[in-house]
């Protein structure tokens, strides 16, 4: 039986990889993919702790997380499409229309 701390460590490593992707990449779509990796890492921690505590609430929470991820992906990709139409690029450095 694998202890729950191993699952939590794996979750933290995956989350750190996602943070690294968000901080270092310029392609907006890859930044969004890194956010998805971070959400999945948190899902893994939810499921592992749900299993360890003998309570299904964590798994229900993962269900809601996936729903929110779907909504976030739809709106985020719509924003990327709208910005691409205006700027002809997905470089996040060029997304500065809100800059004062």
């Amino acid at each position, binding site marked *: 039986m*694998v202890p*729950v*701390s*191993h*699952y939590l*460590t*794996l979750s*933290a*490593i*995956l989350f*750190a*990889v*996602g943070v690294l*992707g968000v*901080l*270092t*990449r*310029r*392609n907006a*779509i*890859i930044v*969004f*993919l890194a956010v*998805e*990796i971070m959400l*999945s890492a948190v*899902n*893994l921690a939810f*499921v*592992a702790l*749900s*299993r*360890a*505590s*003998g309570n*299904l609430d964590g*798994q*229900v929470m*993962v*269900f*809601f997380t*996936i*729903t*929110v*991820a*779907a*909504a976030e*992906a*739809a*709106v985020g*990709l*719509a*924003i990327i*499409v709208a910005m*691409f*139409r205006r700027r002809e*690029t*997905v*470089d996040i*450095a060029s997304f500065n229309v809100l800059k004062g």
Partner: protein
Amino acid sequence: MSVAEAIFYLLGGLAIGSAVLAISAPNPVASLLFVVLAFFALAGLFVTLDAHFLAAIQILVYAGAILVLFLFVIMLLNLGSALPREWLAPPPVLILATAAGAAFLLVLFFVGYRGLSVAAPLPGALPAAAPAVSGTTEAVGLALFRDFLLPFEVTSLLLLVAMVGAVVLAKRER
């Protein structure tokens, strides 16, 4: 090493490896396919945790629907090649913050492992002998429609808002 441990390390290594390749691949399509691979490994890990329903949802909804939406957008925008100057040059304060965060995480794990290794559970945390839960469709569905009915209904509102928002944002201005 037992079979369960071998499966865990295999799937965990696959998840980390493909996640690292996903954020380092220059081509967005390759990056997306590595994320799909990582999500398949995560679905396998969910199975090892007896969360069968979520493993199916992870593959069907996450890898099957959300990531295919990403793929559609990449194809739509015709982003075959990498951007020039793809990598951001990290400012020094970012490097410092990363180092501080990593050190904090290390301390947290050191303390956490010592806390978890002793016989007594963490204060206010997990019961000593947790009853085995099985995340079958029936069990998750009962929890979802009995204890979490209101959040479930609010979720439908969220999806409606996201759908309307996506259509409004992506519609061509005239």
